[in-house]
């Protein structure tokens, strides 16, 4: 059986002190624009690691670098003690990095079940001859794939619409299906790009429960999210990006009160007699809890009142 079982993971995580993912001075240039510069961070095995930052801070770019969609212009990263600098997405998926997408990218015209079955592709082997002959190995493997896919659909809580086309699922179900599909690749690291975007409070709460269950099954989770409550309540450690640089990292409580972070979100403190100053200070004193980080980027020297306008999404 080539399908690895998630249970076996726990041991790996206890025995290996080395971080699962280690980024060293990652940089990414798009022409003259520097989307990422000198980003270094490490993610330990078994933790839930949060990545936050204002819109355009480079979070998704970083995601695309570690999942192979972009090649970094500088630096390199190590995953599971192997170095990668220029690797194709499928190589990294095989190595154990699975991801979801910010704007859902399911296989829209295939069923929920088939979507998850495709996730099993990387851990299975049947080729053309297996398909044509449909020999014993292939049949056993096909059955295992179907079973595993059903199991995963059950796990994320969408077993009922297994035969529904992905495009006909509800928004929340589609998000969950993306997670199930990513889990089907048997990842060591599950990278989720804004999984709670567009969800209501109840859905977000059940997503939180799901992510905790995934973590306790031994899978490390990397999370980009704008919902600060979710990030703070869920993550073991959080890194903050701004203008492509890491400006803070640490446990949620540290990051929450970090002055650089507050400045990035709310704008720099400038001594002025602006009537908005008081507002800003009161927000600052609560730390990030009081705001939704999905909003605007702080304008240096700008007014905190911009916050009320900047509530949009990407």
């Amino acid at each position, binding site marked *: 059986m080539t399908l690895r079982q998630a249970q076996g993971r726990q041991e790996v995580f206890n025995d290996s002190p080395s971080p699962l993912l280690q980024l060293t001075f990652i940089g990414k240039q798009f022409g003259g624009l520097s989307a990422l510069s000198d980003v270094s961070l490490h993610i330990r095995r078994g933790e839930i690691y949060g990545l936050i930052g204002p819109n355009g801070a480079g979070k998704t770019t970083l995601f695309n670098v570690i999942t192979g969609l972009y090649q970094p212009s500088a630096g390199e990263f190590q995953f599971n003690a192997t170095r990668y600098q220029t690797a194709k997405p499928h190589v990294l998926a095989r190595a154990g990095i699975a991801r979801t997408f910010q704007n859902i*990218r399911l296989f829209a015209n295939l069923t929920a079940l088939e979507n998850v079955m495709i996730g099993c592709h990387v851990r299975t082997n049947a080729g053309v001859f297996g398909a044509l002959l449909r020999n014993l190995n292939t049949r056993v493997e096909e059955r295992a794939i179907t079973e595993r896919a059903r199991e995963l659909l059950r796990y994320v809580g969408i077993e009922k619409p297994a035969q529904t086309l992905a495009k006909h699922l509800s928004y929340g179900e589609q998000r969950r299906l993306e997670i199930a599909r990513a889990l089907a690749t048997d990842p060591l690291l599950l990278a989720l790009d804004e999984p709670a975007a567009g969800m209501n409070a109840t859905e977000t709460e059940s997503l939180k429960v799901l992510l905790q269950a995934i973590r306790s099954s031994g899978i490390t989770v990397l999370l980009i999210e704008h919902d600060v409550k979710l990030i703070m309540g869920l993550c073991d450690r959080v890194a903050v990006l701004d203008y492509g640089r890491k400006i803070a990292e640490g446990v949620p409580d540290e990051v929450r009160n970090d002055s650089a972070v507050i400045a990035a979100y709310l704008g720099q403190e400038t001594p002025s007699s602006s009537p908005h100053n008081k507002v800003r200070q009161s927000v600052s004193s609560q730390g990030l809890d009081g705001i939704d980080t999905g909003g605007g980027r702080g304008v240096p020297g700008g007014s905190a009142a911009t916050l009320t306008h900047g509530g949009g999404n990407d």
Partner: protein
Amino acid sequence: MPNALKKFLKRGGKHQQRLAIGLMLGALLLLPFATDALLGRGWVRIVDFAMLYIMLALGLNIVVGYAGLLDLGYIAFFAVGAYCYALTGSPHLALAFPMAFPDGLHLSFWIVLPLAALVAGGFGVLLGAPTLRLRGDYLAIVTLGFGEIIRIFLNNLNAPVNLTNGPQGISRIDPVSVASVLLNSTQNIFGISLPSVHLYFYLFLAFTALVVFISQRLEKSRIGRAWMAIREDEIAASSMGINTRNLKLLAFAMGAMFGGASGALFAGFQGFVSPESFSLMESIMVLCMVVLGGMGNIAGVILGGVLLALLPEILRHIVVPLQQALFGKTLVDPESLRMLLFGTALIVMMLYRPAGLLPSRVRRRELDTDEAAEKV
């Protein structure tokens, strides 16, 4: 009506299903005799060509329907297969290399067939490799160019060494023989007299069945699912660990192999090949069969193949006599009428049935679940 049939098959279970398949097979076996008796020998030949087109359309369906790669030069693989057999199964090579092959090369069809498939598959990879990063319109343009390159090569490779005999084409190709029975003349088998076109019909039927079988197996396999994932979203597919490069090349190669094999059959059947059989229009016709019938659905593709292969012949046999009877002369040439009808049909299809006459199983399932939802 198809719904009633489906219900009947469902209720009846295995037995009735087998019965239905048996009946269909019986009907197919009798088809050349029925056609011969009702419409004449010429029509059996037309049906034979329809079978070849079905094989081609099923091959293209792998590339376009499963993997979603728009290929406008598919007929080139048909040409490669046809010329493979034309060169190795005719006296022609005596012209090019009189020393080496004073009598031409007369390899057995059954040796050349897998060879032709492999060579065409190789050309499929050759076409696929530089186009891996292209999609949609851009891919269509490059494949179109590829198809033309092959045709122009065939047209001009009569100098300095006369390899393809240029526009005159290669004639006197050996007929196919099955177990030392030559298929180019009437044979008596079990007391039944079988003309050549009947024999070829059965040969093509067997090959079509094989192609259908392979397509079906591929569709419901790990490879087939990976192709469909690439068709749906290439970036997501590669992020899920699918090696998109290899699987796209595989799709091109598999499709090309079907094309090459049908090409060899075509050369053996016709006994003559020339570059004009492999024009861009042919590529487009095969693509239309796939699109009209229902991309990704085997039954749909077969239906598309039958319709588009028979339509021009039907027109030719109906329109001219009809006009003669009505006006005493032919006002509209059947060829122009074919194009007119064909264009209209495509526009109507795109407006009312964009997924094809028989949409793929996904669409069907979609309708089924809608029905189920209505019942609840």
